Every structure is written in structure tokens, then in C-alpha cells.
């Protein structure tokens, strides 16, 4: 029986170099674990990370005064000798719609498809410009939440690098020229019934587009036309796995609210690559919320427990109670083993010799846990990158555990099936298509909305085959790699600009309505297909409406149509249930077992997806969930693998010395040569604690050649290694160091709060033993120690809670904040000098051993301290407190001394050293939120709790003569959050959600011991581990002041050395 150490706040004394690192605490990087002096120094100096101070270091007092006099005089002269310029106002000549009231926003329901699947949105339209995407609470895939791509899509919408002109063999042309050229060709094609006419699309769920293509083949005379589908982040394994298990390609719907124990086999089900992830994240989080008394949904059910076996550290891995890092190629074997133990005939004897004893114990405990539960209360879930047999095994395990119709149910497939569906998946279909293209039997190739020249497996040589096609037509949002080599390129209208429809993971259809006319004159896929099929131009609006009119069999179509548009969902469009059962003998064995030395694993990039968001500055600068890298991708490897691969002189990675950590830190960015099956690529490594050993993960999407002015040429192109027989992973990777390094920029050390344990974590059994243990982890100074008086409130007192148990570190809040508050991006070089401008950051900490640490995450906005350290040092009163508890930041008063940031303990203030915001590009001017100041260079910025939203709600409430209702104000971060982890409200109203959460026993104030009285507090992270793996915990009862009310520990007070440094356990 082991005793798990409960970590209190160990105040790492970072000013003294240590020889043995303290792995009991939380650390962000090897440098921090090593207690590296450099980090402390960089946090303290004005010009960190190699930035040189300005050259004139010898400015004397006299010089300074001279300069000040001159600038003061100059400022005075310019200020008073310029008369206020006259500005113009341009009202509408005729208002476009009666509902449009100047300067009031309108919200339209629509949906954003990603990988074909829709996530319902309500998009804020300000005077005809879509400026912010919010989740649609009515939509089953959203429930009000969004992901980073929905938030970031606003930037792509206004991206001036988007395709603006029709291209004909690379030359500028027009839509009319295309129309007049193509119409006779398509008419002539009717003669041979469309033979040689091929459509290549992404995954399509749009009922209208599927219907259009079907009609073109069945009714318009193109009987011989073909339709293939290719998606770089595809779900072919899921589909083929379902076919293997059931004989039918059904889709699976999971219900996490019913699951007490979840086993994930490499399934990152809260990441966007998993269909329905936003909804699943909410459902999962609802079973992880800890409430002492205040009832909330599902709180009566016990906390669920998540086991995950995965190769690459993922956000789902962060949430897991037990995480087992295993090479991707070994997961099939383990899945067979677990299935066998659960009574599934899984293909004979399994060779488990490559698993360690600890791994076997882990697996046995997980299996026992699954087995002991009541039927229907467990869930086994497989990731889309695992081969079909793992999916089939997961289906069989769910069947054996009685989960069918409880935690899993099956529905008819949602995505449209292309005519040329290949039983082995879309990839086999693509190979077939490339064969036809090379053979010259493809006469007209229409590529709708994808970029296969960049994303297709390298061994298929799609680009080479494309040259043999006489007439190729590409419809795309960007003039990308495919657009450059096609005969015709047609700019595509973005999803916010065109009529369309799309279905969610459960089949629910949404009619997507445009919020603006195509900014750069694009066309939708519907309009292109209509032109090709009927040789006449039809508007997207009429096509989509005609389809639904045809589907509708009620009396009043207009009412149905208006309701569907208004609600953002079309009623009764959920996919019908599929009645299937697992076929016997479905699992051809034996298990394929990893033979090679190293696995190469491909994953979609957490922020730029398959590369389509490469030109999106918001998403490029959003730190990746686990690595915190920005503007780059890297080869992720575990510390052990890196040591072996690079021959680092690290004696014992289990018990590293400071010098070892320094070696590891220095190895980040080392260039290595990856080669697999004839393809090779040079790329920098990033040592990722928690990654499976003997495996390397690369994120797809970087290394674009034609992405636009921002995205072209950054990172390395992992597609160059991706081959059709190793689409998601392959065991046959060989790696050798080439020498040389590459500068990777990670924000993991930014905003350091110097080594205290900021994420307070514990277990559910500890919570049951002592609900307040989270609060008692750190001793708080008595209140009278504060130099500042307490603050009193008259009306509202705004506050926020962030629930660490619900946070999935997806980054939607960060991007939402960026969109809402006009926050600029700064670029890789500026991020490297600690100048990223995000008002809200998500800190990632590791705790425990180097190889298998716990990963903890913590979103960190401005804490709005009641006794704010920043306010008292501002020489010009540019940051002051208001009656409602807001720590106001007044840009037009700020003179940029940066004293406030220096004094801020949380490092949440951001100074715009340079003119980061682009005020010149016309399309970006349309993108800005008009309710928030666009800050010029030289002022301090920070989170305001979205004061523009507070003001709007206050004005509404005052006009109606009522108090502001709870939930009326939602800051952008809280609104974007898929799991409702962020709650905002009036802490003086005891009925408000935020007041109730703050009353929870595991609510704690970050650095609360320092008596800043932050108005943002955290609900501690509480996990639900299996004692068979983690061991029984021993809890010591609190002695001394622990059980006394907070802040009454006078017997400990008085000595300066113990503030925040008390260890309770």
C-alpha cells in the first residue's frame, strides 16, 4: 500500500540553484523543474530572452530631462494646434432590413462544418458584418459551446489572402468566362452520359449537395459520372470498423452522462477531430463536476472515471484519471487483450510480453473496473486513427458490457456516401481515382473545397496524376496548392457567406444562412454543381430552399422554413436508429504487432487542423494544447526516446539531476531526419513528457507552399511522410539526428508565477474525507496583514469561477477573447520575447515524474483583485477599481510605464510594445468589434471581464428598471466554453451560480494567501482514481490552524518566511 503524496504549496526557492530537482511540485518545463536561474532572471529583467536593452544605456539625468521637455512641448503643440477634424457619417440610403437598428447587433443561427460535420452557431452580426461566433444552445452538437475553429473562422472570413479572383491556368479570369467556357463542355458531355466526369469532395453531410450530385447522375443525364471523397482527417477507420462489427457502416452516438467508467483506446473525444466533440465534452464534464450541496444536472450520479490508453498526450489525456502511454501500434494488441478478458472472441492468444508489469497491472485494474460495474454503465471508445479492428473490438466490448442503448446507440450513417464508396475506406477510393487519372480516363475533375495536392498521401502522387487530367476545376477558399495546378480555380464563398446546409454528428440538419454577401465574390459548392449539371446559374438560396421545399410535406412551408432558420436546426432530422448486432467472428486475428523500432504517428494540428487554417493568425498564435508551441509544429517524442535517439548524457530519466534536465531542455529544437519507406523529412523535436516511448508524433498542416502571406513556409510538411499504407501511424520509422537546431517557440514558461503549486488537485476520496482540503493546502495570511483596506460593494460585485475539473484546455476561450476584444497577434519572434498579447492564457503544468507526469491545466484571465497590486503603482490612475469590483484599465490614460505589469503577481497584463494591430487592411477593419477600443501601440492591456457586455446588460436592465439577472452577462470566454467551466456573475447575489460555486468547499483563490483577494477563483481539480492503480491514500487530520477559519492562524503568522510556503500534509 503506497501513500500518495499530497502536495501542498512548496515554495520553490528558485533563487538558489539546486542540484536535485524537486519532482513533488508542479513544473511547466524542464528548465522550471531544474530550477533554472535563467527563467527567474528572464522573469525579472525588462528585456528577456536575448532582447538587448536600447543602445543608449548611458542616458544621464540631464539628457532624460531634455528629452522629456522636448517631447512634452511637442505633444502640447500637436495637441492644441490641431483643430478637431471633421468626420463623416454615412447612413443607409435604404435600410436593408427593418430589424437593423444602427449599432445594435443581430444574431443569426447557422453552423460551421468541419470535416463535414456541423457545429451549430449563433453568429453576431454588427451592421452587416459577422464579427463573433457563439454556440447555438439549441443545437445538439453545440449546446452553446464552440471550439477554436469556430472562433477562429471569423479571422479566415476577413483574411485578405483569401481567393479573390477566378483563375484560368494561373491567369486572372472571371466567373462569366468560366461559365461560358464550361457550359458547352458540360452539354457536350451529355453525349457519353458524363463518362470521365469525376467529382472529388471532402466529407459532405449537406443534404442539398448530396441530392444535387445524385440528381445530376440520376436525372440530368450524367449517368456515368463518378464521385470520390477524400478527407485528410478522415473517419474511414470508424466506418470500416462498424462494417466489420455489424456488417453495416453505422455511426455510433455515445452518452457520457450514463457512463460510470470510460475506457478510451486512443480516442481524443474532446478534440475537434472527434465528431460531436463539443457536445461530448459537455456531457463528460457534467459527470465530473463536484458539488457539495447545490444541485446541478447529473450531480446525483457519482463522478465518472476515465481510463485512457494513448500514444500522444491529448486533452482527453489531461482529463483522465488514469493514463497509459502506449505506442499507437501496440494499442490494437491491448484492445484485443482487454476484449478477450471481457469475454469477446478476439482472435486467439495475445502475446503480452512487450508490456511491463506496471502496464499489465494498469490494464488488469481497468478491466476489473469495467467488469464490476452494472451492465450499461460503462463505455469503451476507440479513436479514429486506430485501425478498423480496434473499432470493431470496441463495439463488441460495449455489447459484452451491456452498453448498447445505454451509453452507446447506433444510427444510420450521417455523412453522404459518394457514388464510388470503397469498402476499404475513402483512401482506397482515392487510390482508385489516382489510378484512373494516371491512366487518362478522367476527363473532367471537379475538386470541391479541398486541397488534395497538399494533403493526399505522398505515395499516390496526386499532383502528378492531376497533370494528366485535361480539365480540372477547383473550388476553394484559398488559392492554395491545388488551385495553382488546376485548369480553373473558383473562389469559394466561406460558410458565413453562402446558403448551404449541414448535419451534426447525430444527423440533425442545420440550414446555414449567409451573414454577409461574399466579401471577395466567392461561389458556393451548390452554385458550382448547379452550373455544371444544368448549365444555368442558380442562386445558392434558391437551391437550398428548393431542396427543403421538396422534403417538406406539411402545410405551411414558409413557417417551417422561417422556424428552421431561426432555430438553427431542422426539426426531426436526427438520423434514425440502426438496429444492428455484433457479428460473431468479426475479428480476423492475430493481432498485428509493432515490429519496427519506432512508431510514426500523424495527428491533426490542434490549431490549424489539416492545414486549412495555416493562414489564420489567431489560430497560429494560439498555443497548442499540450506543447504550448506557437507558429510551428515539431516531432513530439518522450524524454526517454529523446535521450536514446540523440544520445543525451542523461543517467537516469526516472530520477533526473539538474544537469540532465538542462540537457533535455537544450535538446528541444534539435533537427532530426525522419524517414519511412523511402520518404524523409527534417524536423525539430520537442520533448513531450507523457508521450509514449519509441514513438514520434507529427502534426499535419504545416509547411504549406501556397497558404497565403502568413501561413506559407512555416513549420515542416508532415504530409511528405504520410503514405497511404501508413495513414495514421506506422511502426517503421527511423530517426537520426542531423545536427543543427531550429528555434521553436513555446509559451510554456510565459507568465511564470515562480514555482508555487497553482493547480490545487486531489482525489475524490480525499474530498469525501475532508471537503475543504483544497482550501487548506495553503496557509493564508490573516486579513489584517493587508496594507489595503477591505472593499465594500453597493450593487453588483462581479466575480468568476473556473472549474478545473471541467476545463479541457481546448483554447476556445482564448480565441473567443481575441475575437471579442480586438486582441492583435504578434508573430513568432515577438512571442519568443514574451510579448504575446492573449488576455487569457491557459497554463499547463506537469506534476510527478518526467516520463509519466500528471498534466494539469489552468486558464488564467485577469483575477480582478479586490486589493490589486497593479492599481497602487500606476502613476496616472490608468488602472483603478470600480464599485462593482472591476479592476478597470483605461487605455487613453495609460502612459505605458508598465509598473502595473511588474507588480502583477499573475502576469496577466500585456503591453503592446509595437503597433501589433493591423489598422490598415480594409477587411480587418470590418472584423473588429466596434464596442471595444482598438488599442494603439504603447498601452497596457488586460482582461476586463468583457466590460462592454456588462455595460450593455446594465443599460438594458436600467432602461427596464430591474436588476441585472443572473446569467444575463456572459463574458466571451465563458460563452465559448464547451463545458461551462467558466461561470461569471454577481457574487453578492447568493442565488447566482457564481456565488453558489464560490461557496463550494473546493473553491480556492489562486495566490489567495497573498491577500490580493482575486475575484476570479478556481474550483480545485479532483480526480477519481482507482485505488488498485494509485494505491490507498492516507489522510492526516489537520492539526493546528487547518481546521480553523481561514486566516485565523495567528500562531503561524508573523514571520515573513512562511507565507504561501506552508505545507499542510
Amino acid at each position, binding site marked *: 500500500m503506497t501513500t500518495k503524496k499530497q502536495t501542498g504549496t512548496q515554495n520553490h526557492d528558485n533563487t538558489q540553484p539546486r542540484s536535485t530537482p524537486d519532482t513533488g511540485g508542479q513544473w511547466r518545463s524542464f528548465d522550471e523543474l531544474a530550477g533554472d536561474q535563467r527563467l527567474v532572471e528572464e522573469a525579472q529583467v525588462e528585456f528577456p530572452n536575448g532582447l538587448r536593452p536600447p543602445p543608449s544605456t548611458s542616458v544621464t539625468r540631464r539628457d532624460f530631462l531634455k528629452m522629456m521637455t522636448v517631447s512634452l512641448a511637442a505633444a502640447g503643440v500637436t495637441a492644441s494646434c490641431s483643430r478637431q477634424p471633421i468626420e463623416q457619417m454615412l447612413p443607409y440610403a435604404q435600410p436593408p432590413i427593418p430589424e437593423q437598428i444602427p449599432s445594435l447587433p443581430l444574431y443569426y443561427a447557422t453552423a460551421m462544418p468541419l470535416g463535414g460535420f456541423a457545429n451549430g452557431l449563433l453568429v453576431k452580426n454588427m451592421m452587416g458584418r459577422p464579427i463573433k461566433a457563439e454556440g447555438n444552445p439549441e443545437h445538439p452538437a453545440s449546446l452553446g459551446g464552440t471550439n477554436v475553429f469556430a472562433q477562429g473562422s471569423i479571422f479566415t472570413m476577413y483574411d485578405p489572402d483569401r481567393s479573390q479572383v477566378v483563375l484560368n491556368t494561373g491567369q486572372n479570369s472571371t466567373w462569366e468566362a468560366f461559365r461560358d467556357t464550361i457550359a458547352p463542355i458540360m452539354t457536350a458531355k451529355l453525349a457519353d452520359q458524363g463518362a470521365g466526369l469525376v467529382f472529388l469532395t471532402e466529407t459532405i453531410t449537406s443534404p442539398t449537395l448530396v441530392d444535387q450530385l445524385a440528381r445530376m447522375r440520376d436525372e440530368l443525364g450524367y449517368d456515368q459520372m463518378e464521385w470520390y471523397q477524400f478527407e485528410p482527417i478522415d473517419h474511414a477507420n470508424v466506418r470500416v470498423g462498424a462494417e466489420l462489427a455489424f456488417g453495416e457502416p453505422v455511426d455510433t452516438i455515445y452518452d457520457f452522462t450514463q457512463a460510470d467508467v470510460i475506457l478510451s483506446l486512443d480516442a481524443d473525444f474532446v478534440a475537434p477531430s472527434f465528431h460531436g466533440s463539443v457536445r461530448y465534452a459537455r456531457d463528460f464534464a457534467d459527470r465530473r463536476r463536484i458539488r457539495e450541496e447545490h444541485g446541478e444536472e447529473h450531480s446525483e450520479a457519482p463522478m465518472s472515471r476515465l481510463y485512457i490508453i494513448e500514444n500522444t498526450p491529448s486533452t482527453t489525456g489531461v482529463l483522465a484519471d488514469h493514463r497509459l502511454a502506449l505506442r499507437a501500434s501496440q494499442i490494437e494488441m491491448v484492445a484485443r487483450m482487454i476484449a478477450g478478458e471481457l469475454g469477446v472472441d478476439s482472435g486467439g492468444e495475445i502475446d503480452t510480453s512487450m508490456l511491463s508489469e506496471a502496464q499489465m497491472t494498469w490494464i488488469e485494474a481497468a478491466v476489473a473496473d469495467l467488469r464490476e460495474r452494472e451492465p450499461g454503465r460503462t463505455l469503451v471508445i476507440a479513436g479514429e486513427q486506430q485501425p478498423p479492428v480496434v473499432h470493431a473490438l470496441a463495439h463488441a466490448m460495449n455489447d459484452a458490457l451491456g452498453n448498447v442503448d445505454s451509453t452507446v446507440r447506433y444510427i444510420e450513417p450521417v455523412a453522404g456516401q459518394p457514388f464510388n464508396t470503397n469498402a476499404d475506406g475513402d483512401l482506397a477510393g482515392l487510390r482508385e481515382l489516382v489510378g484512373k487519372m494516371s491512366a487518362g480516363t478522367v476527363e473532367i475533375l471537379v475538386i470541391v473545397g479541398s486541397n488534395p495536392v497538399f494533403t493526399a498521401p505522398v505515395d499516390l502522387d496526386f499532383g502528378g496524376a492531376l497533370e494528366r487530367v485535361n480539365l480540372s476545376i477547383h473550388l476553394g477558399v484559398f488559392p492554395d496548392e491545388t488551385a495553382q495546378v488546376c485548369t480553373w480555380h473558383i473562389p469559394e464563398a466561406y460558410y458565413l457567406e453562402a446558403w448551404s446546409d449541414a448535419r451534426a454528428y447525430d444527423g440533425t440538419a442545420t440550414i446555414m444562412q449567409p451573414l454577409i454577401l461574399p466579401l471577395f465574390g466567392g461561389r458556393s459548392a451548390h452554385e458550382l454543381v448547379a452550373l455544371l449539371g444544368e448549365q444555368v446559374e442558380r442562386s445558392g438560396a434558391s437551391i437550398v430552399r428548393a431542396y427543403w421545399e421538396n422534403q417538406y410535406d406539411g402545410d405551411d412551408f414558409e413557417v417551417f422554413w422561417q422556424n428552421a432558420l431561426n432555430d438553427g436546426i431542422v426539426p426531426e432530422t436526427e438520423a434514425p436508429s440502426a438496429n444492428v448486432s455484433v457479428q460473431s467472428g468479426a475479428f480476423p486475428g492475430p493481432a498485428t504487432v509493432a515490429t519496427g523500432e519506432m512508431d510514426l504517428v500523424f495527428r491533426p494540428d490542434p490549431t490549424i487542423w489539416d492545414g486549412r487554417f495555416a493562414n489564420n493568425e489567431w489560430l497560429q498564435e494560439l498555443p497548442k494544447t499540450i506543447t504550448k508551441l506557437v507558429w510551428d509544429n515539431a516531432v513530439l517524442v518522450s524524454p526517454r526516446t529523446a535521450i536514446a535517439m540523440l544520445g543525451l548524457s542523461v543517467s537516469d530519466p526516472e530520477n533526473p539531476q539538474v544537469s540532465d534536465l538542462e540537457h533535455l531542455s537544450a535538446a528541444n529544437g534539435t533537427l532530426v531526419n525522419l524517414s519511412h519507406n523511402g520518404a524523409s523529412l527534417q524536423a525539430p523535436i520537442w520533448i513531450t513528457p507523457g508521450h509514449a516511448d519509441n514513438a514520434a508524433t507529427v502534426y499535419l498542416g504545416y509547411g504549406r507552399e501556397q497558404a497565403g502571406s502568413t501561413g506559407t513556409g512555416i513549420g515542416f510538411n508532415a504530409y511528405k511522410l504520410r503514405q497511404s499504407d501508413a495513414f495514421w501511424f506506422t511502426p517503421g520509422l527511423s530517426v537520426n539526428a542531423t545536427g543543427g537546431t531550429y528555434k521553436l517557440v513555446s509559451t510554456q514558461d510565459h507568465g511564470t508565477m515562480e514555482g508555487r503549486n497553482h493547480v490545487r488537485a486531489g482525489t475524490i476520496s480525499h474530498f469525501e474525507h475532508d471537503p475543504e482540503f483544497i482550501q487548506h493546502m495553503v496557509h493564508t495570511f490573516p486579513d489584517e496583514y493587508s496594507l489595503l483596506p477591505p472593499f465594500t460593494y453597493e450593487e453588483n460585485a462581479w466575480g468568476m469561477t473556473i472549474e478545473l475539473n471541467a476545463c479541457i484546455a481546448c483554447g476556445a476561450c482564448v480565441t473567443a477573447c481575441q475575437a471579442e476584444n480586438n486582441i492583435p497577434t504578434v508573430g513568432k519572434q515577438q512571442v519568443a520575447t514574451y510579448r504575446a498579447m492573449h488576455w487569457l492564457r491557459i497554463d499547463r503544468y506537469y506534476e510527478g515524474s518526467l516520463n509519466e507526469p500528471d498534466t494539469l491545466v489552468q486558464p488564467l484571465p485577469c483575477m480582478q483583485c479586490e486589493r490589486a497590486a497593479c492599481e497602487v503603482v500606476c502613476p496616472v490612475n490608468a488602472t483603478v477599481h470600480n464599485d462593482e469590483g472591476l479592476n478597470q484599465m483605461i487605455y487613453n490614460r495609460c502612459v505605458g510605464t508598465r509598473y502595473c505589469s511588474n507588480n502583477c503577481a499573475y502576469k496577466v497584463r500585456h503591453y503592446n510594445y509595437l503597433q501589433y494591430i493591423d489598422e490598415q487592411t480594409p477587411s480587418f477593419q470590418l472584423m473588429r468589434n466596434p464596442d471595444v477600443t482598438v488599442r494603439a501601440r504603447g498601452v497596457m492591456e488586460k482582461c476586463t471581464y468583457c466590460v462592454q457586455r456588462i*455595460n450593455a446588460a446594465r443599460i438594458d436592465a436600467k432602461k427596464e428598471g430591474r436588476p441585472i439577472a443572473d446569467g444575463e452577462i456572459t463574458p466571451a470566454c465563458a460563452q465559448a466554453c464547451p463545458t461551462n467551466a467558466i461561470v461569471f456573475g454577481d457574487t453578492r447575489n447568493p442565488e447566482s451560480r457564481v456565488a453558489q460555486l464560490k461557496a463550494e468547499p473546493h473553491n480556492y483563490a489562486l495566490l489567495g494567501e497573498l491577500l490580493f483577494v482575486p475575484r476570479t477563483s478556481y474550483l480545485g481539480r479532483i480526480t477519481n482514481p482507482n485505488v488498485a492503480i494509485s494505491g490507498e491514500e492516507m489522510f492526516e487530520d489537520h492539526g493546528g490552524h487547518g481546521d480553523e477559519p481561514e486566516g485565523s492562524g495567528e500562531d503561524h503568522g508573523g514571520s515573513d518566511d512562511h507565507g504561501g510556503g506552508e505545507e499542510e500534509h
Partner: protein
Amino acid sequence: MNQIFRPSANTYFKVIVLSLALVVASVLWSMAVLDRSNFTRRVNQPLPQPIAFSHELHAGSLGMNCRYCHSSVDVSSFANIPPSETCMTCHHEIRTNSPDVQKIWESYSTGVPVEWNKVYDLPDHVYFNHSIHVSKGVGCTTCHGQVNEMPVVWRVHDLTMGWCLDCHRNPEKYVRPLDQIYSLEWQPPANQIEQGLQLVETYNINYGELDHCNICHR
């Protein structure tokens, strides 16, 4: 050798230093005065418009309500400059031969907006909201003056922060009954302070929060 400076030099020196200081001070002072002057702030200076629209005629002689044109004043932050369409509701029949009306007609029919000059132009870092002011007792004329007497509109206040704060700190000096908001005739009664204090109470105007920075700046 004669001494270079005679005793009177001390006096000269003092006078020169003093007058230099005076010069600097007076320059700074006059700059400050200039900055706050009606000239710089464009107060009381009629601003020509592309179309000779007369508030004196429409709001004064014809007695049209402000909200006929400025229709969003009580719901939105922006009081709305009427679209050309609003003008055409009457002018499709009235005075159709006037060159100014023809300009409006041209805008209405081509969709090209009229480029009005902005009379009340707050700095971009100020977020003013009309609707909350008119619903809490601040009438149109309090800020905009007697537009019913202005053939061409001018600014009647300097729009300095001090001017805003005068009312935000002492709203009782200015608030009026809600049925008088759009009245162009209303004048403060003799007992304005007394009545104002009552109205402030009725309107639930919170003195404490009105001079928060975030009320106007964000």
C-alpha cells in the same frame, strides 16, 4: 581689469530669468486655453452640410418630433442619422424640384449614401449611449441645444470630459421629467435641484457608478 559684470547685471539676470519663465508659462497657458477654446472644439460654429437640411424648419416651424428621423435614440447607443428613405416619405411629393431634395432622391435611387458631416464627434475611446440618457431624464436639448432654432446645426457644448462629468456627478442639475425628454421648449424650473433630486431617486440613478471609468471607456 574692469569687472565684467557690474552690480546691475544681477538685476538684469533676474529679470531675464523671470521673464523667460513667464514666457514659457504663458505659452503653455495659451496652448491650454487654445485647446479648450471654442475654436478648437468647434463650439458655436455652424457646420455646413452637403444638403441644406434645416432643423429650424423641420423641428421648429413644422414641429416634427426628434424621433421621426432619429428613430433609434431610445433603443440604441446611436441615435440614427435617417436613411435617405426617411426623407423620401414626405419629399416624394413635397418640394420635389428643390436641388437639395433631388440630391436625396439621387441617393435614394442609387443607394449611394449622403455623406453628412458629424457635428457631435466624440473621441473613439468614448462609448456614449443615447438610449440610457433619454430613458433616465436627459433631454435632447440638454446636450444639443435649441436645434429648432438652428438652420445649420452647430455644437453647443465643448464635449470635454469635465463637461460630461458635471452631469455624471450632479445629474440633479439637468434631469427632467420623462414626458419632456423630446420637448424643445422645456426649461429648468426654479426648483430644478429639488425636482432633480426627486427624479434622480425615481430614475434609480446611482451616483456611485456614474463616474466609473468603465462607464464610458473600455
